[in-house]
């Protein structure tokens, strides 16, 4: 029911470049390496308790017999009815998709995934040292910022280090890292210099990612070796002056020649990272596509690999920016560029999908980098707070400072946990992680901004000064909420994509109602669910036995939050149906709920693992987890209650709309100041 809508609204992409992220096509391991399946990943999980026949003895690491018995009783009467109704297609294993439906699909989230085998872990450890040293000793972020370019020696050093081809297979000259390994290195880059991060990321995370994901063997062999060594740089060209979030509206055109041997590319792209440095461009342009059935010709987007050497490719001067100044951002112009037909990336007309995949694949990398940034910033904040004396005391003894520091580290912990969970899911071969990836981007970019802003606050006037370098990080961070899909668009995407499955289920129910006898099971299950939820009896869902016993209270909070959330999702979908796609006030609030909920689950998972493995930081993590869950659960409870039952909500939305309308009519603030002039 909502199939196309999520795609339309959610996949508006800004061509803004991201910094380092992973890409790997959805394959699990490097060639020749067996997937590191452990007993944990192989066990059967307690899936949705309602709506599906129980797959087999559920493995609950912390389950006591009594808990199991209680659960058995609660849904046995329903499962009888349901046994007649089998799920029609393979259910998505995504936690986010399930949570919109009020289900607990824990396959991808519990236990916290560990995907690296011994060899990969040791190899990664060996890489961390040289990369860290390089950024500590050679790279000078302040200098790069002042020069508004990456110093030549640094760039050269990065190339020699191998940093430009981290994910290219080693046979083609790269380091061949999987997503999780990549995330670890990207964390280092994020900690030290985001501008360099963007230079690297625009090159390999999006610039030539398309070749890795969709390239033919010939394309890969031709382009990847020089890209991996850094001899040639790449750039991702999607954004145009009139097309940002609305990527489908791009106007750059690629007209096929009559002989069919080449396309002629004309158009201009805006704000392209590495635009002034790159030799290889992934360009998205409109091409005429003939529908084989009807013969109608439509303009669809196609992705191309364009070499500067083809002629007709020029670029503008470097843009002056608020932050990431050392990263080159420029307009790129294509004037009658002849692109050989062999350079089509993917299929003609499938460029939109290509762009989506590229961006989706790299998103968790941003969260990983930002987790690193926050780690560095928090160190600075703590260092200041432990040394600064005011009112006769070190300021870390004051409650206001303590709360700031605590909040900062919780945001860092959540972001980091999300980043490594998504990367691990991708390494495990999961193909349905787009909502989680989007959530991690939204959360990470906003968390990093808040953390850095708060660090400046803790440092007082000192934070505002150039020397400590924190103000530079804040300036660098601002763009992360904008490019690679603005957080606003991504929120719409999370809400709509999340609602999509649920919407299908509801419309499925709608048709079931037309044929009630044949669909008794579905209806009974649904009716039962609704009855229980409305009676406040809970859905019978539980995380008991899945989260560590010490976290059971937070686990309950998460389940309650999920139930509250799903109830509202369902109610709103029933009310608005397809029209929900225009209810942006609502969608934003649903997305915020989804983000908080996923965040709760992610930290529950990570803290559980730490507790059960006896990490020496386990108790601290328990505190972080519990604290986060208390506040997130409250936000969700209040947010959903407001959406569901606050009569003033509609008044609010109407007011927002009217106020905005008045401003637009006036061209600015409507009122004059209190003086009247």
């Amino acid at each position, binding site marked *: 029911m909502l199939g196309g809508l999520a795609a339309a609204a959610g996949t508006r992409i800004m061509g803004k470049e991201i910094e380092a992220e992973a890409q790997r096509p959805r394959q699990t391991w490097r060639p020749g390496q067996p997937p590191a399946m452990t007993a944990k990943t192989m066990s059967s999980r307690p899936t949705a308790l309602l709506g599906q026949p129980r797959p087999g003895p559920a493995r609950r690491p912390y389950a006591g017999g009594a808990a199991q018995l209680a659960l058995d009783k609660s849904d046995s009467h329903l499962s009888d009815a349901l046994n007649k109704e089998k799920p029609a297609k393979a259910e998505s294993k995504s936690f986010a998709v399930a949570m919109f439906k009020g289900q607990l699909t824990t396959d991808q989230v519990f236990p916290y995934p560990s995907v690296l085998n011994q060899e990969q872990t040791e190899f990664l450890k*060996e*890489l961390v*040292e*040289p990369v860290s040293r390089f950024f500590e000793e050679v790279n000078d972020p302040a200098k790069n910022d002042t020069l508004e370019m990456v110093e030549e020696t640094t760039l050269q050093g990065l190339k020699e*280090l*191998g*940093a430009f081809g981290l994910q290219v297979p080693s046979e083609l000259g790269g380091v061949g890292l999987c997503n999780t390994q990549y995330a670890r290195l990207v964390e280092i880059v994020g900690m030290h210099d985001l501008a360099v991060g963007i230079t690297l990321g625009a090159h390999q995370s999006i610039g030539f990612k398309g070749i890795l994901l969709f390239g033919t063997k010939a394309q890969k062999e031709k382009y990847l070796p020089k890209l991996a060594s850094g001899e040639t740089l790449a750039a991702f060209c999607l954004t145009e002056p009139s097309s940002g979030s609305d990527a489908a509206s791009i106007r750059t055109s690629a007209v096929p020649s009559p002989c069919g041997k080449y396309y002629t590319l004309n158009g201009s792209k805006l704000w392209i990272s590495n635009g002034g440095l790159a030799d290889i461009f992934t360009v998205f342009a409109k091409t005429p596509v003939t529908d084989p059935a009807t013969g109608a010709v439509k303009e669809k987007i196609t992705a191309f690999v364009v070499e500067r050497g083809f002629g007709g490719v020029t670029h503008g001067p470097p843009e002056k920016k608020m932050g990431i100044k050392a990263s080159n951002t420029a307009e790129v112009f294509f004037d009658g560029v002849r692109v050989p037909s062999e350079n089509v990336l993917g299929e003609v007309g499938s460029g939109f999908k290509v762009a989506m995949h590229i961006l989706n694949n790299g998103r968790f990398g941003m969260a990983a980098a930002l987790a690193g940034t926050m780690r560095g910033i928090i160190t600075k904040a703590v260092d200041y707070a432990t040394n600064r004396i005011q009112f006769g005391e070190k300021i870390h003894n004051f409650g206001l400072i303590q709360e700031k520091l605590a909040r900062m580290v919780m945001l860092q912990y959540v972001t980091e946990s999300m980043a490594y969970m998504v990367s691990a899911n991708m390494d495990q071969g999961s193909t349905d992680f787009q909502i989680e990836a989007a959530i991690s981007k939204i959360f990470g970019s906003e968390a990093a901004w808040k953390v850095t802003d708060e660090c400046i606050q803790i440092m007082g006037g000192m934070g505002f000064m150039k020397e400590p370098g924190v103000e530079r990080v804040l300036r660098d961070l601002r763009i992360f909420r904008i490019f690679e899909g603005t957080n606003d668009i991504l929120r719409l995407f999370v809400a709509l994509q999340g609602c999509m499955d649920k919407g299908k289920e509801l419309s499925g129910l709608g048709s079931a109602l037309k044929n009630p006898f044949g669909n008794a099971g579905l209806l009974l299950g649904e009716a039962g669910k609704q009855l229980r939820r409305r009676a406040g009896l809970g859905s019978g869902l539980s995380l008991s036995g899945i989260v560590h016993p010490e976290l059971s209270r937070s686990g309950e909070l998460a389940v309650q939050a999920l139930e509250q959330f799903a109830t509202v999702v369902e109610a709103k979908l029933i009310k608005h149906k397809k029209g929900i796609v225009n209810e942006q006030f609502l969608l934003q609030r649903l997305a915020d709920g989804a983000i908080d909920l996923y965040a709760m689950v992610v930290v529950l998972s990570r803290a559980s693992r730490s507790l059960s493995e006896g990490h020496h930081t386990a108790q601290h993590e328990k505190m972080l987890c519990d604290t986060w869950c208390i506040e997130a659960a409250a936000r969700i409870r209040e947010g959903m209650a407001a959406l569901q039952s606050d009569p003033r909500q509609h008044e609010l939305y109407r007011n927002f709309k009217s106020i905005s309308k008045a401003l637009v009519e006036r061209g600015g603030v409507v009122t004059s100041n209190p003086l009247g002039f």
Partner: protein
Amino acid sequence: MAELRALVAVKRVIDYAVKIRVKPDKTGVVTDGVKHSMNPFCEIAVEEAVRLKEKKLVKEVIAVSCGPAQCQETIRTALAMGADRGIHVEVPPAEAERLGPLQVAQVLAKLAEKEKVDLVLLGKQAIDDDCNQTGQMTAGFLDWPQGTFASQVTLEGDKLKVEREIDGGLETLRLKLPAVVTTDLRLNEPRYATLPNIMKAKKKKIEVIKPGDLGVDLTSKLSVISVEDPPQRTAGVKVETTEDLVAKLKEIGRI
């Protein structure tokens, strides 16, 4: 002339940037969970050996380290910098704590003979014990000439010209090969191991042997009685005049 072979000894030490803490039982310093890396002077030695190889003056560079299993990380770093293969002389952790220059020098001497190398390179001293003895003792056991505190090394036919940093300035020696050289700070600036080189290093071999295989007895005649923090610096005292200064010094029994 590129028939020379070099043995480089590397030591795994606590990273120079780490704040050292003494164990409460005073038997040593805390090493558990603490960041370790290759001794900086050993890095310089590896770098020099690799540069000689790049100049085609040395054919093979062998990296060796004595100690527990974790030494292999250090050998790998040497391999990533360009050494051809590694030898890990495995010593169990308990015994490794009592390894000193005398024992290591015996091992290195035996290995130098066994591997028939022409040049043994070491860092001038390790930053954990600051002994500055291993290179000298190794040369003694082998009865080879030595050039210590090298700030420049040049191969001249079958001789090695070594410029040394000594208290009075610079001293230049000419050594007949085979010889032992220990490296000082200004000899070179070690390269960063690049990620592709780390990958290539995975394929290089590390041979694991025991000191017994070389016929070396590791017993030490030294035992550590206690390890303590240096005394806390007390505040200084300011005085007004020279007479006050003399009086104060007499007071605290310094003169």
